[in-house]
């Protein structure tokens, strides 16, 4: 297995799918000549040309709609949002057009397309550039939502997303692009809707996804030293969501902490908690606790930003609480 960065894993997936199917094209701001704001599309313009690697004006609503129209008549667009913060401007095309077209048309018009880009917080980008949108997007029937946390999952899920005949929201992480990990050689596919148990332990479950998987793994390492063994369930996709994997873990550990990057109220974690208390009511030895961003817009100052984010410390505290060790 090759060790790749999350960025290179995505680039590989894009290249392989662009080679595999000439209906696939990539569209977005700075994706072509500039090689992508975060260089995920590096080299693709040279290889596939300007008709398939398309720079757009700064018009998220417009080019998201262009993607919808192209998908309606059989192309397979990959729409890149420079970051998901800007996708709010395009959310009508994602939610009211892409997610509903198949249904409104009584099954006549499929939407084989991907909306992708970095989601969540980077470093000191301030309130308008530091938001995690998975709970909003997972709320919408008609969409599928992928949140890979490792290079292998990034590659395998992106390939699945591009091949899927439904609109797939693909949430990457600016802070993840440089992280490294082993990626299986050759055709590597990760099916949408399957969580992965990234670490086995029987004392407590951490249910998480996306960027927070790295935090969860660090927490598991730290706690292992104290003899506390953590089951780390990486959801990998939050719509559909692998309820069985969650239940299996919690039924084993009888304790759970749900870790996410975004805000608390109606966040992904709230839904995971709902599944757990329904599926594992009699298994739980303690209430499920959640770790998430503080309930504030993201501040710029380094110290405030650090305090606002979910982290290993907050997660360990939550785990000790559900284990009654505090």
């Amino acid at each position, binding site marked *: 297995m090759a060790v790749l960065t999350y960025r290179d894993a995505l680039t590989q997936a894009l290249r392989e799918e662009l080679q595999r*199917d000439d*209906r696939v*094209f990539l569209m977005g701001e700075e994706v072509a000549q500039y090689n992508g704001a975060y260089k995920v599309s590096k080299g693709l313009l040279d290889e596939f040309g300007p*008709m398939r690697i398309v720079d*757009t*004006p700064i*018009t998220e*609503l*417009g*080019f*998201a*709609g*262009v*993607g*919808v*129209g*192209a*998908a*309606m*008549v*059989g*192309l*397979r*667009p990959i729409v890149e949002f420079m970051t998901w913060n800007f996708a709010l401007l395009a959310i*009508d*095309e994602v939610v*009211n*057009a892409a997610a509903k*077209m*198949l*249904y*409104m*048309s*009584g*099954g*006549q*018009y*499929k*939407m*084989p397309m991907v909306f992708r880009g970095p989601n969540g917080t980077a470093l000191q980008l301030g309130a308008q550039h530091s938001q995690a949108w998975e709970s909003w997007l997972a709320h919408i*029937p*008609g969409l*599928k939502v992928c949140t890979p946390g490792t290079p292998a999952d990034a590659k395998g899920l992106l390939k*699945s997303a591009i*091949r*899927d*005949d*439904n609109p797939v929201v693909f949430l990457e992480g600016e802070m993840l692009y440089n992280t490294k990990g082993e990626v299986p050689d050759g055709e590597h596919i990760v099916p949408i809707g399957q969580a992965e148990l990234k670490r086995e332990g029987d004392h407590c479950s951490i249910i998480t996804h996306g960027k927070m998987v790295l935090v969860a793994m660090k927490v598991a390492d730290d706690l292992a030293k104290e003899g506390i063994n953590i089951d780390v369930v990486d959801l990998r996709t939050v719509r559909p969501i692998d309820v069985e994997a969650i239940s299996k873990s919690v039924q084993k550990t009888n304790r759970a902490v749900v870790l996410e990057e975004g805000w608390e109220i109606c966040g992904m974690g709230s839904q995971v908690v709902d599944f757990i208390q329904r599926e594992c009511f009699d298994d739980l030895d303690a209430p499920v606790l959640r770790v998430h961003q503080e309930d504030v817009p993201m501040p710029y100052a380094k110290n405030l930003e650090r305090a606002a984010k979910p982290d290993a410390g907050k997660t360990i505290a939550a785990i000790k609480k559900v284990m009654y060790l505090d």
Partner: protein
Amino acid sequence: MSTEAKRAPAQKRNEKGAEKGKPGNNGSESSPANDLASTTPEVRRELLTSMMLQRRFEERCAEAYALGKIGGFCHLYIGQEAISTGVMSMIRPDDYVITAYRDHGQALARGISPRAIMAELFGRATGCSGGKGGSMHLFDSETNFLGGHGIVGGHIPIAAGVGFAIKYRRGNQVCVCSFGEAAVNIGAFHEALNIASLWDLPVIFIIENNRYGMGTAISRSTANEDVIVRARGYRMEGESVDGQDVFAVRECMARAVERARKEKRPTLIEMRTYRFMGHSMSDAVSGTYRTKDELEENMKRDPILLLHNRIYEAGELTEGDMHKIDDEAKAIAQDAWDFADASPEPPLEKLYTDVYADTSS
């Protein structure tokens, strides 16, 4: 190719439901625009037939709505039929059509079966969207009718995307996208037109200027009422035309279609028309926002009346022929009603289908 133009109207295009009253396709690639738009008695008769069908069909829609057979929002097209008929008569079966929620006339003129449309309005399984779309969301993949969209302006970027796909495949189809004059102020219009011109997309954007967006006169919503001026801001060809005159509509469409097929350039067309009914079935026809007088004044320019008179004065049709066309239209509308009324509701399990396609490539 005017022979093809002549033969075309007879050509039957839609497979679903009933087989009646669709205008044909006079599209062509080589002959000059005027030729294309030129009509014969037969074509003129087809145009009248198409417009008459829309009128009679929607009169029954109003009736069905009053009886509660049609629910939700129902926006009638009555008064604007010269546009749908004129436009659809100038494009090919393999071209694409997309419009807003006021879509019955466009759907009928494009050739979706009246039965499938009425069944959709009645919310039946036999509807063109399986009963899931309703009045605002008519779809028909067989006639490349891409809906039926309810968010003002939302479908305009989608049309640009269809144009992008045509270019991507080096096709020579066009995509026709129509919307109301009030939609020109919304961001989606602006973003889509810039993209369509920047990328040379074969899209024809049609502003159906019926002078009101719900209760708001264009003068109260649009800084420059001469909306076609905006085309220049996008380096796009723009034309204004009398949308009550089906021949004028066809001529300017001919130019736009040529431009799209040959030069791969988009066009923005303002078609001036008037809405004879209320904004939707739940809105007043006149009142605080327009006077009865204004309404009556404009109804004198009923597009069907204008065409009728042209044909009649030319002595091409007798009173008898006229009645026959009208009776046929009424019969088709009645047939659609009966078909819809007799059709079953969608089975409950359909609630959960079409949320996701279970296929992949």
